[in-house]
């Protein structure tokens, strides 16, 4: 009886989890259609081991479902970044300027060069500092705080677009 209840609970959890990311519908699907070239996150299937494995290490024992969830959630954040990036209203620009207006496909943002000292900002800047600066100054949009969901999504998208670039922090 206890085992049966346990299995039902598992089924409910899996069902809820799956419904959070319906495939092929919703805003994320539209974003994926609009920007089909956004790279997928790193393939982590190499950390999947059999559920009964006794392999040592903190990455032992993860299932294919776990790894799929990581990819799904990470990619979801990146796609949300793509949506925000190409939507002037999402960043509060009332002059019709989105991030993508000046940076098509995230070009010219070079997230791999941060942190770096920006004289104009007066400190070693992170990518999120430039996102905030650009939103306010170039798009005449909202101030985007470091923990603003839009900032987090934009940072994710810009990083994803530079998949494979060598990190050269501090580079001008």
């Amino acid at each position, binding site marked *: 009886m206890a085992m049966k209840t346990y299995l039902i609970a598992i089924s409910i959890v899996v069902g809820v989890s799956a419904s959070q990311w319906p495939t092929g519908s919703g805003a994320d699907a*539209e974003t994926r259609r*609009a920007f089909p*070239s956004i790279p997928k996150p790193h393939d982590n299937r190499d950390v999947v081991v059999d559920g009964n494995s006794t392999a040592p290490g903190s990455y032992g024992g993860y299932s294919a479902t776990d790894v799929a969830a990581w990819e799904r959630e990470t990619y979801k954040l990146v796609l949300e970044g793509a*949506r925000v990036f*190409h*939507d*002037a*209203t*999402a960043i509060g*620009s*009332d*002059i*019709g*300027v*989105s991030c*993508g*207006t*000046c*940076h*098509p*496909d995230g*070009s*010219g943002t*070079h997230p791999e*060069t941060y942190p770096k000292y*920006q004289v*104009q900002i007066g400190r070693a800047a992170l990518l999120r500092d*430039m996102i905030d600066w*650009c939103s306010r*100054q*170039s798009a*005449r949009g909202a101030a985007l705080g470091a923990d603003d969901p839009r900032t987090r999504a934009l940072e994710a998208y810009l990083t994803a677009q530079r998949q494979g670039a060598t990190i050269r922090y501090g580079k001008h």
Partner: protein
Amino acid sequence: MTGPDSARAIDVARVDRRSFLRVVSAGVVGLCAGGTEPFAAPAASSPGRVDAFRFAVIADAHLSVDPRNDRAEKALLRAVAEVNAMDPQPDFVVFGGDLARDGRKDALAFGARILKAVKAPVRMVVGDHDRHLDGGAAWRGLFGDEEYAWTHKGVRFVVVNGVRRVGEATSAATRDPAPPGPLHADDRRRAAFEVGEEGRARLAVHLAAVTKETPVVVLSHAPLYKLHRGWNLWTEDAEAVHAILAPFENVTVVHAHAHQPLAHRIGTIDFHGMIATAFPLPRPPEGVPSLSFPIDRPNPFNPADGCGIGWVRIAADGTADATHGLWNREPITVTGRYLRRAGTEDRPPRARRPSY
């Protein structure tokens, strides 16, 4: 006849014949209506030596009426002031398209008022943003026909609408609607550009007025070649357009849209891509012609950097030298000689540092 050249000639003849009569008859109607820029062919002029001259180029202002879009407004005002200060004055000023950010009528009218301050005659080219909302109706109401031609000091100038969307002539669904949804501000998701069958027919009519030795300058917003489809730097029917231009010995296309200097030569056609007043764009990830040269990366903290005005000098032999008058920087001149000698002579200064 065999071989690619003859096949191309046959193709052009077939494509253009279908629209030729319609276009000519429309041109006659335009003349009768007293249009100031009829596209009907005037009497053919005899080839003669060109009287050297220059014209100025202002492009990609991306205005909106919102007072917070002050940078775009100030940049266009600066461009107008600088063109008015040119000494000697240019023979005319080409506005290369994208006067308005999103094609709103009030923004276009705002731009028209600013451009009225230009002392020299202004020749307008329509841009994709100008046609964004209504397929160009508001633009045409202010500035007239999108396609026209004239001859100036021995050079044939032809303005083309290079920003029709593929299929817009035949499909109501693709006739330049504003894309739905929150991504409306990003124009690059939409169909590629084409001059289109009717546009090509008009181009042919405009060129029929002159001999093949007459220097030709084509003014377009889009580059009229295939550069990078993902950023809408792409003319779907580029080859058919080039085939119409191919018989002419001396052709230069002056375009905007890329917001950066571009240089190219295809066959006998020189291409000069001019800079914007509103903002620069990064170098496309693919398709940049080998004759194009990167400029040093614009400084995002200086919104005027990477922007500016341009001017084109037409020499006595009909070749065109384009100068990019970058604000904050030394002007860069790309000569016709540079293009025609495959970049071996007159090389413009290169960027000091590679881009990312």
